[in-house]
């Protein structure tokens, strides 16, 4: 076991130093004050409208699969069902942050119902998502899409290497299935007993509904129906979930920060990439891609995020990172963003030559999650 830790990154370049200068400049800012307080007020009817629209899209596309005149229509319909399921996740996301409604009961009820297409236990998702907010792009502590160095990767078991590299390349669409296995259906993941109890309760609810729904599907449509009307839309929902969350915080133009350099304000304002979607997609994903304002102030309801983002851009010009969404960008991420580079602090591709660094600081970061 190594006893001394080196400061990471080992040899930061001009990009990293420029980033850290910006991170230091905003370190003590009260970022949330840039967002007008009236934008924090939830309108439950607007949230419920989003919930109904996304469930209708999910169910409508599945009915479409059942009545499709040709199997070639199944894949596009599954993707539409997945968009509905992903939109429902985005509604549950507001519930998890208590920005759906002022009523905690309504947040919990809608949150549980909205995560059913993903069979994701709401409380487990809520707690792990809060950990992501507390530790965004922290090399040691983030719970979502946290990269490993090549040295750590090499010490993983074969299965863990397949999962890690698969979900960062050809199987990126299944990345959130991995997180679901790690923290969604494993209440022991959470440090507080109250969190573990809640995660068990949500898990029991999900399993109960799943058992009933599967039995009904088998009865009326057979096991083929389970695959066509439940498993395939579940996979498609994860594909939306994975692609979106991967893109929010993964790029080789932004670093992951070790604890010596990480600070909360930088994690909120500087380490997210907002993707500009066409209006219809923004509507059906409930503004999830307007993400920096969400990290600065998670209590802002989704329908107020455009205004909150505009206020933030005005207060901190040039600080937010916005890009137009393209599949080419997604392709570049899965091609280039594989390992944490201990020299630079940025992502490096597996096709880059192996510098043969010892495991060092990140040696122990592999196993726990």
């Amino acid at each position: 076991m190594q006893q001394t830790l080196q400061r990471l990154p080992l040899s930061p370049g001009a990009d990293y130093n420029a980033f850290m200068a910006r991170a230091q400049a905003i370190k003590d800012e009260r970022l949330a004050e840039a967002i007008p307080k009236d934008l924090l007020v939830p309108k439950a009817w607007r949230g419920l409208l989003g919930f109904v629209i996304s469930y209708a899209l999910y169910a409508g596309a599945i009915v479409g699969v059942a009545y499709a005149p040709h199997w070639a229509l199944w894949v596009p319909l599954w993707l539409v069902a997945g968009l509905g399921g992903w939109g429902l996740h985005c509604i549950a996301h507001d519930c998890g942050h208590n920005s759906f409604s002022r009523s905690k009961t309504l947040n919990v009820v809608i949150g549980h119902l909205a995560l059913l297409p993903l069979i994701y236990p709401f409380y487990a998702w809520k707690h792990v998502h809060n950990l992501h907010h507390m530790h965004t792009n922290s090399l040691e502590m983030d719970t979502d899409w946290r990269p490993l160095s090549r040295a750590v990767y090499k010490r993983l078991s074969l299965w863990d290497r397949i999962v890690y590299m698969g979900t960062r390349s050809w199987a990126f669409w299944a990345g959130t299935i991995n997180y679901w296995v790690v923290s969604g259906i494993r209440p022991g993941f959470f440090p507080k007993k109250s969190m573990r109890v809640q995660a068990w309760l949500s898990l029991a609810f999900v399993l109960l509904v799943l058992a009933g729904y599967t039995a009904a599907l088998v009865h009326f449509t057979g096991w083929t129906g389970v695959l066509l009307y439940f498993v395939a839309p579940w996979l498609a929902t994860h594909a939306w979930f994975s692609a979106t969350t991967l893109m929010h915080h993964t790029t080789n133009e932004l670093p992951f920060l070790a604890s010596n350099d990480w600070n909360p304000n930088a994690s909120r304002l500087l380490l997210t990439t907002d993707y500009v979607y066409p209006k219809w997609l923004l509507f059906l994903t409930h503004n999830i891609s307007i993400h920096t304002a969400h990290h600065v102030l998670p209590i802002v309801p989704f329908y107020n995020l455009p205004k909150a983002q505009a206020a933030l851009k005005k207060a901190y010009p040039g600080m937010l990172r916005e890009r137009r969404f393209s599949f080419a960008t997604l392709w570049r991420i899965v091609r280039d963003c594989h390992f944490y580079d201990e020299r630079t602090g940025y992502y490096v591709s597996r096709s880059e030559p192996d510098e043969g660094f010892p495991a060092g600081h990140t040696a122990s970061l592999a196993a726990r999650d």
Partner: protein
Amino acid sequence: MEQVQSSGGLLGFFKKFGGEAKPAEPLSGAVIRDWLVRRLAKQLSVPASEIDTSASFASYGLDSLVAVQVSGDLEKLVEQRLSPALLFEYSSIDALTNHLVAELRLPETA
């Protein structure tokens, strides 16, 4: 974070699944040090009295997998997510305890 209040009925059933809560004693440097001593003694199958809190974890032959397990178990005691690299950064029971006391603003003794 909402707290689960009741312990009867269905909720009580699920509370059993929640596993061990932190000890009733308020968290302090002494509680953490004592927990680490017992955890290490259990790991090494030696009496707790044989554990030197100033000796490095490496001198006890702890490998990185055990270090990660210990930091995972320690999370349940302090009820916070901790860096799995913690036992690398603070390499003895004393160093780790002092770090947690400072970081979590705990008293040295309850």
